[in-house]
């Protein structure tokens, strides 16, 4: 078959055009703007070098946002995967209503972070609070999202509720691809339930674990919607002698630097740092996958 290059080019064109206009051009403009004094108002934009980058690392808000984003990400990796794994064991057991459970655990994932954030704001501030004071549970008798010490944990809790069902489905797919005869053989050889899970099931799911750990890593690190509607960055806290917002994750810090403070160039510089960190995460993931392929 003779293939005409110009028809191929024509077929590629619509996507390539949108891709270049929406991602590539703004990406390079963005890198340029991160080294300017762009403020969104003044049409004259001038080059300032790396001042925006130097400035951010001495800002209490940015340092705090950075730290709590790492903490939030770490908590989520542990909890989302742990809960997802336990749910997948339940959903692949012989329990009667397992298909209903699977669907039920999965549903929160389909609903946007904005909507869920408002719902959980209500749950934390009204329902759980009322429940806590009615039952006399001390630590619930003030809202968990109103205290800097608990707000990140509350957000992780919601994120786990939202995301664990999705991770569960990835594990379910992995478990189903393991042949039954292996598990049967182990059972006959006298391996009990926990030994079978630890020595056979989990090693055979190694690939799925790599996928889910990086999925939870990147989605937590990029968290914005839930942060915006659940806490909007609050409550306030004093850190390094300055008043800051104690649940403002990095993505939201970028947004509010630009939106509330009109410091567009500085927000852009933060976004570039954000991008570089995500590239590092992806490179680590590619490296791990490559190494596994070599071993296999």
């Amino acid at each position, binding site marked *: 078959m003779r293939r*005409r290059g110009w028809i191929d080019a024509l077929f590629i064109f619509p996507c390539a055009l949108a891709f270049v206009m929406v*991602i590539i051009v703004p990406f390079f403009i963005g890198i340029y703007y991160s080294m300017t004094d762009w403020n969104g108002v003044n049409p004259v934009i001038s080059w300032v070098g790396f001042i925006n980058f130097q400035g951010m690392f001495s800002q209490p808000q940015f340092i705090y946002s950075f730290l709590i984003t790492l903490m939030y990400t770490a908590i989520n990796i542990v909890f989302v995967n742990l809960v997802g794994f336990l749910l997948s064991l*339940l959903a692949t057991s012989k*329990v009667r*209503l397992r298909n*209903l459970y699977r669907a039920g655990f999965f549903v929160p994932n389909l609903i946007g972070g904005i909507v869920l954030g408002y719902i959980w704001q209500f749950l934390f501030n009204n329902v759980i609070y009322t429940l806590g004071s009615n039952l006399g549970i001390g630590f619930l008798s003030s809202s968990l999202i109103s205290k800097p010490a608990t707000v990140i944990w509350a957000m992780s809790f919601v994120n786990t*509720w939202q995301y664990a069902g999705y991770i569960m*489905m990835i594990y379910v797919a992995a478990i189903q691809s393991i042949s039954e005869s292996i598990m049967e053989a182990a059972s006959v050889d006298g391996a009990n339930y926990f030994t079978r899970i630890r020595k056979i099931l989990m090693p055979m799911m190694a690939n799925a674990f790599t996928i889910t750990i990086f999925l939870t890593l990147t989605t937590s690190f990029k968290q914005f919607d839930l942060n915006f509607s659940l806490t909007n960055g609050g409550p306030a806290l004093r850190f390094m002698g300055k008043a800051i917002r104690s649940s403002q994750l990095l993505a939201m810090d970028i947004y509010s630097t630009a939106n509330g403070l009109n410091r567009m160039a500085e927000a852009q510089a933060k*976004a570039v740092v954000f991008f570089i960190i995500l590239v590092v995460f992806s490179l680590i993931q590619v490296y791990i996958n490559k190494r596994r392929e070599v071993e296999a």
Partner: protein
Amino acid sequence: MNLQHTKSISPAGLVGGKKSRAWPIILEIGGILLFLLFMIPFLMVLLNSAKTAKEIIFDPIALPQNWAQIFQNIKLIFENPTTDYIGAFFDSLIITVLSLAVISIFSAMCAWALVRNKKKWSTVIFMVFVAAMVIPFQVVMFPLVRWFKIVGDFLRIPLLGSYQGIVFAYLGFGCSMSIFILHGFIKNVPLELEEAATIDGCSQARTFFSVVLPLLQPAFITVLILNGIWIWNDFLLPLLVLGSNGRVQTIPLAVTSFAGSYLKQWDLILTSTLLAMLPIIVLFIFAQRYIIKGMVEGSIK
């Protein structure tokens, strides 16, 4: 990958060996409790959507005194002067459907051309599409708005605050992953089929539209679901491209503006979230298998 629901999986009595009788019962009870725990937030939304603001403040856990209040609340939202909720619903629908249409057709065209064209440049283009998936939205969002303004003014086609602008943006953001998924699928479509079509006199374009395109259906399901859920729920891109009180609105924007202007009026806010969730949950009930399959396959690739 096998995600059939009916199949009883349990890799050889993974749970509940022959020895213990207690395990199955503990699991059954634990399962139900866990399921209820997961559903409580939805239940609370439903309960409190059928209450007045006073009732909610008085007791957010109790059953509503009058379930018909839910219609009263819905009516208040629909007739609300600040947020055109019904308009936002249809705007969301139009944006999602149009975006899905252009993403799937153009990504399939692009992916097919990239797979079948053996020149070096096509490999390079594919690599650029894949590599760009690392770029987070945050790093392009502010320049994008400015760039859209410049291009829109230049072409005299408004890209900000319009359907065409946001659909074009979704094509740009959605095509990388869609091309990646379709690329992987098309590689396994036998070339002989296309050669036979050519011998029968099909042009290159016709071969694609009448032979290849119908074969892509399973991959399209994944592409439609992944992009559809994302676009329907997306918040930041509509916020920046459409603006928070522009002519065109989406459901997440409407819910946000609602929550912003009726601070702590939970009767209205919760009813608005209920209305926002309803279409997705109904869709999920009917297309559960496809949705789960699409979302899981998308993540693994």
